[in-house]
């Protein structure tokens, strides 16, 4: 739009309004088409979440019904003279009504109107098998209460949160220190060290895993949280890079003023740099929380012998492997309980989060 606005104004006022109107008409049509297309794409992109959500409120019987609808539905029944009868959609005289089928027959059946049972039985001509059953909205919460217990959800939630939060402290502290070192001090080999730091992003994890795992076994750390927590206190390339890029944008005048007042480098970091770097520190914290919450492989290999110390992601994978596909509702309930925390965190901090992705992704 700004491009159009900068165009030189045509000399004739009449011509101007005409072209303007034509353009705005075309723009309206284009924006409708593009936006409509995007709505379709995003609906398809996110539809699995909807599917998962709907399944999590359905019983196995509801899911395996013939022609089961997309929502939690149960066949409607009606109590008549002390017995329960199925309700079908019946068209009588052009009006479709929900009628209880009291007596089934191949050519004619006895029906009762649930809205007016006093009217007695009505004889209906036609094959009852051609009728569609009437459905009622009937969500179940059993999947959630069952998975809460079967997955040991409160325990796994606590483990996941504790590992994420302790690791967050380690990551924020160590990465801030290292980023400060890279951003504010000149020393020989600095750019070489920075290059090494960045290149670790491209290193296949397998090439360090075998000795590291073996050492952790020897130290007796396998089966504890230590292999997941200790490395966070030694900084990582992504977060150091993100912090350094931000620290470089903070003017040096204030550090210099602090230095003149006799503040040492650490004091300058804490009292001058950190207060100005909150946005990026929060970004690193959120990144770590989501990363740690979603990590699968490290908890899998280091905590496989200790299910009571395990995280949600691994617990969920094992839970679904043990139950195979018979209980999709249960598995989807567990899935939603696992993804809810990182997704909500993202939605709250989405601006900070996406800006962080831009910095680590584009500026390298």
């Amino acid at each position, binding site marked *: *739009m*700004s*491009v159009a606005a900068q165009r030189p104004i045509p000399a004739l006022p009449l011509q101007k309004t005409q072209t303007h109107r034509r353009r705005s008409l075309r*723009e309206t049509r284009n924006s409708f088409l*593009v*936006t409509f*297309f995007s709505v379709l794409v*995003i609906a398809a*992109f996110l*539809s*699995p979440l909807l*599917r*998962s959500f709907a*399944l999590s409120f359905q019983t196995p019987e509801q*899911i395996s019904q013939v022609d089961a609808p997309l929502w939690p539905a149960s066949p409607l029944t009606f109590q008549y003279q002390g017995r329960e009868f199925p309700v079908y959609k019946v068209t009588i005289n052009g009006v479709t009504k929900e009628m209880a089928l009291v007596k089934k027959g191949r050519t004619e059946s006895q029906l009762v109107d649930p809205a007016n049972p006093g009217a007695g039985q009505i004889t209906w001509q036609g094959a009852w098998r051609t009728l569609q059953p009437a459905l009622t909205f009937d969500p179940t919460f059993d999947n959630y209460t069952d998975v809460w217990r079967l997955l040991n959800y409160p325990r796994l939630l606590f483990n996941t949160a504790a590992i994420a939060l302790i690791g967050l402290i380690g990551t924020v502290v160590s990465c801030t220190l*290292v980023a400060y*070192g890279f951003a*504010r*001090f*000149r*020393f*020989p*080999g*600095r750019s070489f*060290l920075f290059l090494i*730091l960045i290149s670790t992003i*491209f*290193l*296949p*994890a*397998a*090439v*360090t*895993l*075998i*000795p590291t795992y*073996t050492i952790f076994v020897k130290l007796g750390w396998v089966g504890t949280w230590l292999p997941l927590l200790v*490395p966070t*206190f*030694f*900084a990582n390339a992504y977060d150091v890079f993100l912090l350094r890029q931000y620290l470089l944008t903070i003017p040096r005048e204030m550090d210099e003023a602090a230095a003149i007042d006799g503040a040492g480098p650490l004091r300058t970091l804490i009292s001058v740099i950190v207060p100005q770097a909150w946005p990026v520190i929060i970004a690193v914290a959120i990144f770590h929380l989501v990363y740690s*919450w*979603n990590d699968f492989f490290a908890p899998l290999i280091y905590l496989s012998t200790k299910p009571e110390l395990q995280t949600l*992601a691994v617990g*969920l*994978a094992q839970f*679904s*492997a043990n139950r195979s596909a018979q209980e*999709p509702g249960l598995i989807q309930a567990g*899935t939603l309980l*696992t*993804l809810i925390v990182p*997704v909500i965190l993202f*939605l709250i901090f989405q601006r900070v*989060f*996406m800006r962080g*992705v*831009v910095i680590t*992704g*584009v500026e390298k």
Partner: protein
Amino acid sequence: MIALRRPRMSRLAWHEARSGLLFLSPWIIGFLAFTLIPIVATLIFTFLNIKLNQDVPLRFVGFDNYLALFGDSQVWDSLLVTLKFAAISLPVAVVLPFAVALLLNSRSLRGSSLFRVLFFMPYTVPFVAGVLIWAQMLNSDSGWINGLLGVVGIQGPDWLNDQGWVYPGLVIIGIWGIGGGIIVNQAGLRGIPTELYDAARIDGAGWWGQLRHVTLPMMSPVIFYTLVLAVVEVLQYFLVPLVLNQGTGEPGGSTRFFNLYLYQTFFSYQDMSYGATLAWLLFIITLAFTGILFWSARFWVYYAGEGSSS
């Protein structure tokens, strides 16, 4: 380090260097302990015969482990599986985020910041959860994908249990991971000066011409970056099939990825030395592919401001 003792360096500069290295020390120690020493140790293991489940005397075996690679059909089969999957997944991993970013950057799109959040959101879904949700979507009977295909009269395949369809199925499971790529591509698109588009329009370029002659060259560094990361990632791919079928390689060995074989060699067969050899093979393959990409960059990646264009 020797440079530090040079008399040229003033006391002040020396102080600064010492403080800088002190602040770097967490990373330096971590890099030595968790990266450099393990890499070297992995390399040393490849020349030894360490098997955790057998009590054999430790011995230097020279290149025996490397020679064993050539006779091991599982190595070549699993590499082939990885390459086949890469051939399908890499174009999607590069093109899809770019295309969505183009859509989000379109001037005609209303509410683009909301779309941006929605497209990015699944990126934060734990990958195990994403796999289980998509496995449900790909179910041959009850999944919505086959349901949709059924509406237009196509009998959908049994995605994850069919050797021919499992790779496209895995690619579909992976599409929730494009959020990061979308954001990076979008930032790249926003960085293209509008004057370039104005100039192209004056030269008579339409939508396609502008894409071909302005957007693509200007975006080539971003595309290059996404491609390199995607290559590094796809060579290590194995976690999704690990969650789906516990590393059995079903259907018919078509998900026995190289990295799966590597981890099973170490964790299941406890063969440290051979596992380390596989790890180094993966490392070398990764270096080779990224090396080729960096070499090829001179022909197709355009860095504005460097003056040389293709």
